[in-house]
C-alpha cells in the first residue's frame, strides 16, 4: 500500500517547486508589498515620472559638444587622479598585503592590518572623498587621497589573499639557504604571485578611472564636478555630451587593459 502510494507520488516530485522556494517567493512578494508604500512609491508618481523621463530624454538628445575644452580638461584631470591614486595605492598595498597575509606575518601584525584594510573597504569612496575635501580642501588632491584609500581597501585584500595561497616550499628552501626577509620575499614569494598582482593592478586602474569620474560631485576634482554643475543648471544637452565622453573613455580603457592583460598572459 505504502509502496504504491510512494510510486504515485514519485513522478511528481522532481517537477514541483519545493515548499522552501514557494515560501521564499511569497516572502519576497510580501516584503515588496510592505516596503513599496514605506518609500512613498505609487503608480501615479511613477506615471508622472515616466512622463518627465520623456521630456528629460528629449532635452538630452542632441548632445552639445560646443564646450569641448571644458570636457577635455575634466577628463584629463580624472585620468591624472586615477593614475596617481593607482600608483600610490599599489605602492602602499604591497607592504600592507604582505603584513596582512596570515602565512607571512605573525597574528599580532596581521590582525590590526586586516582591520585597517577592512575599514578602508567599508567606507564608500564618495564618503571618504567628502571627508578629504573638508580636510584638505577642494581639488584633485582630495580625489587622489580618497581613491588611494579605496584602492588600499580593495587590492591590499586581494594581495593578502593571493599571498595566502602560495606554496611555502620555495619560501622554506630560500630561507634554508640563509636568505633574509627581503630576499625571501623577492625570490620565493614574488615570482609565485607576480602575474596575479599585475592583473589586480590593472583591474584597480580600471575601477579608479570609473570612480575618478565621480568624486568631482563632492568637489574632489575631475569631470564629476563639471557633470554635477551641468545637472544643476539643467544643461541636459551638455550632460549627455559628458556622459557619452565618460562612457567612451571607460570603454577605451577597458579595451586597452584587456589587451595588456592578454599580452601579459
Amino acid at each position, binding site marked *: 500500500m505504502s509502496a504504491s502510494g510512494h510510486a504515485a507520488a514519485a513522478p511528481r516530485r522532481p517537477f514541483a517547486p519545493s515548499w522552501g522556494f514557494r515560501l521564499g517567493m511569497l516572502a519576497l512578494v510580501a516584503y515588496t508589498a510592505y516596503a513599496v508604500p514605506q518609500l512613498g512609491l505609487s503608480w501615479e508618481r511613477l506615471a508622472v515620472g515616466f512622463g518627465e523621463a520623456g521630456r*528629460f530624454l528629449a532635452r538630452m538628445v542632441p548632445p552639445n559638444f560646443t564646450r569641448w575644452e571644458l570636457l577635455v580638461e575634466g577628463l584629463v584631470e580624472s585620468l591624472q587622479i586615477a593614475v596617481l591614486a593607482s600608483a600610490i595605492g599599489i605602492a602602499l598595498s604591497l607592504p600592507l598585503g604582505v603584513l596582512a597575509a596570515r602565512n607571512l606575518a605573525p597574528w599580532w601584525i596581521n590582525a590590526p592590518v586586516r582591520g585597517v584594510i577592512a575599514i578602508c573597504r*567599508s567606507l564608500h569612496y*564618495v564618503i571618504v572623498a567628502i571627508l578629504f575635501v573638508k*580636510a584638505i580642501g577642494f581639488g584633485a588632491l582630495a580625489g587622489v587621497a580618497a581613491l588611494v584609500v579605496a584602492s588600499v581597501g580593495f587590492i591590499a585584500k586581494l594581495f593578502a589573499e593571493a599571498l595566502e595561497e602560495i606554496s611555502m616550499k620555495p619560501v622554506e628552501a630560500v630561507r634554508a639557504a640563509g636568505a633574509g626577509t627581503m630576499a625571501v620575499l623577492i625570490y620565493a614569494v614574488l615570482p609565485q604571485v607576480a602575474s596575479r598582482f599585475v592583473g589586480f593592478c590593472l583591474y584597480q586602474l580600471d575601477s579608479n578611472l570609473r570612480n575618478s569620474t565621480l568624486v568631482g560631485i563632492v568637489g574632489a576634482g575631475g569631470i564629476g564636478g563639471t557633470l554635477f554643475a551641468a545637472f544643476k543648471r539643467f544643461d*541636459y544637452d551638455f550632460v549627455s555630451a559628458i556622459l557619452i565622453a565618460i562612457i567612451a573613455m571607460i570603454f577605451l580603457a577597458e579595451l586597452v587593459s584587456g589587451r595588456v592583460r592578454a599580452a601579459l598572459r
Partner: protein
Amino acid sequence: MTGATTATAAATGNAAPARAGADPMRPLDREWSRFTPRQRLARWLVWLGVVAAVAWAVRSIDIIPEFLADAPAQMADLLVRMWPPDLAHYYPEVHTALVETLHIATLGTILAFFLAVPVALLAARNICHIAPLNWLAQLVLVASRSVNSLVWALIFVAVFGPGAAAGVFAIAFRSIGFVGKLLAEALEEASPGPVEALRAAGAGWGATMLKAVWPQVRPAFWGIALFRWDINVRESAVLGLVGAGGIGVVLNDAIDFFQWDRVATVLLAILAVVLVAEVVVNRIRGRLI
C-alpha cells in the same frame, strides 16, 4: 658518469648539431634567458609607459601647495570636531534613514533582477540564437555598467524628483549590467545535455528553462543576488548626497551644517550596517552554496 655524458651528448645533438663536432662543450656556454629580446623590449616599454604616466600625472595635476601644507592640521581639526560622536542624534532621525537605505537597497536589487533576467536570457548565446539580439543585450548591459550609480541617481532625481523612488531606480539600473553580465556568463556555462534531453522529450521553452537551465544556474544566481545586495547596501548609503533618499540625506545635512559630531554618528551607523550586511551575506552564502 656515463649517464651524464650521454645526456649532454643528446642535449648538444638536439641544440646545435652543426657545431657539435668542433667543440662539444660550446653549446653549453650558451646563456639562457627567460624572455626573448622582443619580450624584454615589450616589458621595458610597459614599465616606461607606467613611469611616464605617473610622472606626467604628478607634474601636471592641479594641486594647491598651501592646501597640501596644512592638510595634517586640518585633518587633526576634523577628527577633534568629530569626537565624541553625538549618539543622541541616532534615534529617531538616523535610524529611520538607515531603515530607508536598507529598503532602497533591497527593493533596488529585486527590481534589478526583474529587469536583468530577460536581458541576460537575450545575451546568453546558447539560449537566444539571434546574433543582433545578443549584441543589443550586451550593449544594454555595458551601458548600465558604465554609468555610475550616483550618475543614475542624478538622472532619476531629475525624472522622479528627490526621494527614495529615485534611489530605488538608480540602484536597479546600475545593477542590471552587473547582474545581467554574470547571469549571462552562468547561463552560457550551463551544460546543453539536460536542455536537449528535455527538448527531445517534447518540453516547451518554459519547461526547458525551468527544469533544465534553472537548476544549473541556481547557485550562481543566489551568489550574484547576495553579492549585489551587499554592494547595493554600500552604494545606497551615498545616494542621498544627490537627493535620492536614504541615510546620505542625513549625512549631507549634517555636513552642510558643520555638525561634525553628528557626521561621526552617521558614519559609524553606515560602517556598522555595512559590516553586518557583509557578515550576514557570508553566513547565508556559506549555507546556500
